[in-house]
């Protein structure tokens, strides 16, 4: 349903048509804010990860977070959970567990107790692949309702935004994002490599793990709130760097802002491009992200 601009402004101030007020205040506004928060979280997470891993292709979903969160959500659906709080929590728990599994795997795979960041990244990919396989198995024998819910969730969407969800996501992002901004200079140093970081007084291992965990926390929170929304965490830090930012404190903040704008824009497109059908938000961001990334690749090649 479309609401005229003046209606939106009135509704935000609590005046005018009660239907408009309900639509704007309880449906559209939380949806926009949720989209912005998801974009901010993924952007900040990606910027911190790319810096600390020294890898321009690193992104939050590579940590196994997305796979783990999807497993959590699918398991919740499979057990007949319908309450959104349950699914959200299950997804969050799944995402965080996957990260801890990845950490454990990297310790086994790495040299002794000193698994480096690269091993960590590979471990994340492996855990993610395993999680995806587990989802396929679970969905193969799922009921249609479970299947639809799980699929919708895996395609990513801000449509189910509620104020409760917005609040919970905002809290997580303030906490983990704020911590990343607090330790941002360590990421500057980490981006020089582990030996160089150590020579500048940063415990590369501990600091790297901290960034990894905080980035994963951000990703898990966004995934549990809106499903899988690809390419934001990968592309947004590159846009922020293109703005000339290098130091990670401004870079992380800028990536959060750019991410917020992109996801809100993509969600607007998802909702309005082919009415009355809503396109999956995750697909829109990927459709926008892939060409951008190819251009980026051409420039750096």
């Amino acid at each position, binding site marked *: 349903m479309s609401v005229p601009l003046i209606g939106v402004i009135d509704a935000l101030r609590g005046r005018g048509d009660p239907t408009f007020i309900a639509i704007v205040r309880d449906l559209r506004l939380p949806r926009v804010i949720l989209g912005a928060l998801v974009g901010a979280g993924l952007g900040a997470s990606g910027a911190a990860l790319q810096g600390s891993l020294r890898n*321009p292709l690193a992104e939050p979903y590579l940590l196994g977070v997305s796979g783990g969160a999807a497993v959590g959500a699918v398991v919740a659906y499979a057990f007949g959970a319908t309450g959104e709080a349950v699914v959200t929590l299950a997804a969050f728990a799944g995402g965080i567990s996957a990260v801890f599994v990845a950490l454990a795997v990297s310790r086994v795979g790495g040299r002794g107790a000193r698994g480096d960041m690269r091993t960590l990244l590979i471990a994340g990919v492996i855990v993610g692949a395993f999680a995806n396989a587990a989802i396929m198995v679970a969905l193969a024998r799922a009921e249609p309702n479970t299947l639809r819910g799980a699929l919708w969730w895996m395609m990513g969407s801000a449509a189910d935004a509620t104020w409760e969800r917005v609040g919970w996501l905002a809290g997580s992002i303030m906490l983990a994002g704020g911590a990343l901004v607090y330790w941002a*200079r360590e990421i500057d140093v980490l981006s020089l490599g582990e*030996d160089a970081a150590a020579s500048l007084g940063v415990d590369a291992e501990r600091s790297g793990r901290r960034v990894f965990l905080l980035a994963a926390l951000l990703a898990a929170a966004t995934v549990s709130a809106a499903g899988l929304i690809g390419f934001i965490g990968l592309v947004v830090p590159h846009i922020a760097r293109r703005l000339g930012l290098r130091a990670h404190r401004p870079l992380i903040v800028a990536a959060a802002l750019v991410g917020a704008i992109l996801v809100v824009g993509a969600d607007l497109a998802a909702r309005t491009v082919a009415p009355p059908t809503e396109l999956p938000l995750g697909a829109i961001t990927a459709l926008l992200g892939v060409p951008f990334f190819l251009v980026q690749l051409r420039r750096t090649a």
Partner: protein
Amino acid sequence: MIGIADLVVSYAQARRNAVDGVSFTVPRGQLTALAGPNGSGKSSIVRALLRRADIVRGGVTLDDRDVRTFSYGELAKLVAVVPQREEAAFPTRVHEYVALGRYPHLGLWRAPAEDDARAVDEALGQAGVNDLASRNTDELSGGEWQRVRIARALAQKTPALVLDEPTTFLDVAHEMAIFELLSSLARSGLAVLLVSHQLNLVARFADTIVLLDEGKVASSGSPAEVMKAERLEAIYRWPVVVTRDPAIGAPALVPLRRPRNLLDHSIPTPSTRDKP
């Protein structure tokens, strides 16, 4: 002053200790070179100094205090290290890159003050990269990049400086320029420890050479004392001749071609001792 005392470093699953009872000192005002074949333990000593290797016995001291009693931050104010390899994942301006050397003094939040800016400028000047300050790190040649990395270490303003193979991949002129720079830094009062394969250059520039073999000190002393043909042959397992550098008379190493008149089985082969 850096002190290495009876240092033993071991890696899991290695058949021998990477560093096996090594002792030497790196005094201020001198250029001390650490040389030896691949896998002789050079880089492990650097890692032990950075608290990044497991010290089994002995230790590394800075001004007679064990490095393990320092925090990482305290350590970074006393010794700056230019690690062997380093690639900047995201290009940044040289000035900003060198300014990262101030991190040990700034910490997470303190804004750079006047003396931080001065330290960065001085470091750029000492390393001879003033002109590069506004360039991007991915536009530098190999030699320029190495000097910029040294500038970053100098910006730390530490009394000791450690460099791990700073001239790998550099041509003769750039290599010489780096050695001249390190020599002048030592003259200015720094304790400089240089890990290098370039025995001939080391012989011309270093005050002391510590020659490692299989984790042990094979020889240490002035270049003339260390650069003996029999010793180098035994360590590198390759026939060599030691002559004199025609310019300044420093000992110079000339590895020989394989003697063609010998049968294959008697041809010397370099040992294949890889790093753990």
